[in-house]
């Protein structure tokens, strides 16, 4: 290590950060690939089918076959499309989904950038994901893509507010914007995690997370039965695959955030002997996996929301609920019962 450090000299911080970024993005991309496989398998079994089982042992090579297929396909740029923005849109969608991982802690020490305003950074970066959707719809020069992008953008903007207020509750409970401190504030077993004192916010965050990533039952942006496939209808080949990657990367990101903010991060389920021998990293992965399973479960269970119902739920139910709970948490913190919210 010291030899490497002397070799790269003043560029050492740069090299080190680059290595960290690769160490996060590469497993994330593999995770995305196998999340698509898991989705098809889980939904398959829920619908009493088998799911992919031809490529490799029990279909385990299916994601790789899909990736190769998409790479070989031609990227068609429609006539009248704005070429530069058309190509830029997928990049703008996936960049925030990856950039947000910079501040996600995997264990008390294992974090790429342990910044103080980590929670704010996450909110700012994830709020930029909507640009990719809007630009994709506009640059395609197609009415279906445009309608899909309008729906999707309105939905993302509405649910972002509720998500932000839910995170305000976490901020109040933990007295910190630093994600490592937030997890440390939930030290202990399942009853010390923030999902219990902030239960309404936990529910709102989970559901708003599903809406934010445009997943079923909130996938009116895609709405196959109404507007073909939404904002990415004109995309093909790898450009479409990048949108696909971004959607799944966002799902993993939201799951990781839910695990860190509300489900105790790397803290074991119960702080007793056999359970706290398991390393914290494994606990975090288990929790992320659990939330991801919920995403797939929702998709297999619920029918799609109507558009006005989505807007009503976001503005008239979620935002008031979180606002009231912010006041409740604030009031409880001034009483002798403050230990309830830590």
């Amino acid at each position: 290590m010291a030899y490497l450090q002397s070799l790269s000299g003043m560029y050492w911080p740069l090299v080190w950060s680059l290595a960290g970024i690769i160490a996060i993005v590469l497993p994330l991309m593999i995770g995305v690939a196998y999340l698509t496989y898991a989705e098809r398998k889980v939904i398959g079994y829920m619908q009493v089918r088998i799911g992919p089982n031809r490529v490799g042992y029990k279909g385990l090579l299916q994601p790789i076959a899909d990736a190769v297929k998409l790479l070989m396909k031609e990227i068609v740029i429609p006539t009248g499309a704005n070429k530069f923005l058309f190509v830029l849109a997928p990049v703008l969608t996936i960049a925030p989904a990856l950039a947000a991982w910079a501040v996600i802690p995997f264990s008390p020490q294992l974090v790429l950038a342990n910044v103080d305003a980590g929670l704010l950074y996450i909110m700012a970066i994830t709020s930029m994901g909507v640009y990719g959707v809007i630009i994709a719809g506009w640059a395609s020069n197609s009415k279906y893509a445009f309608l899909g992008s309008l729906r999707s953008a309105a939905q993302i903007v509405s649910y972002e507010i509720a998500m932000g207020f839910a995170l305000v509750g976490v901020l109040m409970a933990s007295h910190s914007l630093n994600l490592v401190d937030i997890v440390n504030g939930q030290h202990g077993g399942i009853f010390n995690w923030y999902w219990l004192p902030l239960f309404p916010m936990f529910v709102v965050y989970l559901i708003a997370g599903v809406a934010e990533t445009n997943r079923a039952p909130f996938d009116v942006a895609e709405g196959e039965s109404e507007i073909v496939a939404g904002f990415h209808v004109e995309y093909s080949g790898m450009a479409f695959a990048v949108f696909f990657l971004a959607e799944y990367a966002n799902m993993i990101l939201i799951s990781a955030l839910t695990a860190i903010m509300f489900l105790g991060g790397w803290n074991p389920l119960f702080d007793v002997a056999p359970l706290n021998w398991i390393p914290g990293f494994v606990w975090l992965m288990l929790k992320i996996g659990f939330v991801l399973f919920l995403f797939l479960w929702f998709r297999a269970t619920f029918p799609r929301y109507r558009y006005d119902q989505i807007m009503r739920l976001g503005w008239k139910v979620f935002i008031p609920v979180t606002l009231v709970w912010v006041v409740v948490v604030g009031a409880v913190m001034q009483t002798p019962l403050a230990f309830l919210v830590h």
Partner: protein
Amino acid sequence: MDFLTGVFYFFSAILLFSGFRVITTRNPVHAALFLVLAFFSASGIWLTLEAEFLAISLVLVYVGAVMVLFLFVVMMLDINIDRLREGFWSYMPLASFVATMLVIEMSIVVGSRSFGLNVVPAPVPHPAGYSNTRELGRLLYTDYVYPFELAAVILLVAIVAAIALTMRRRKNTRYQNPAQQVKVKRNQRVRLVSMPADQPSSTKS
């Protein structure tokens, strides 16, 4: 030139370029996107001043919310550039007067006499545990609590006024009442008709 100066000039160059493109580009959607780039570079410059709360809030509020709505509206407009340029020369004298006044005022403020390094020194580097967010919150809710709350009330009044002005109720709009939809029972929607199971004899061969 150290690293921080290089970062400053990098962001400033992008900021000036994108600011210039906002007013020169012909396509309004491009102009809005250049404005987004300008906000982003400005936030980068604020980060070099250790004002991370303001920098991230700029991205969160302006890039994440305001410009999205702006783009939303601009995208749906069918703007004819030639129509917009029609009155260009008639507005020119007034516009140039306003622009000159702005330049004079800014040069007074930003001039070296009142804005140099000896008047406004570079911020002292803060110790490791310093939190810009905590410090701002403390100041806003102690020393500046009345101006801050006053600004909040004014904003609230503006929101209420804007909604009151733009809200119109059309008589022929039809609403769904979700509570009624949820409460609906099967027998309000479906009527079971019992029919005798018979087969018309004519189809038999």
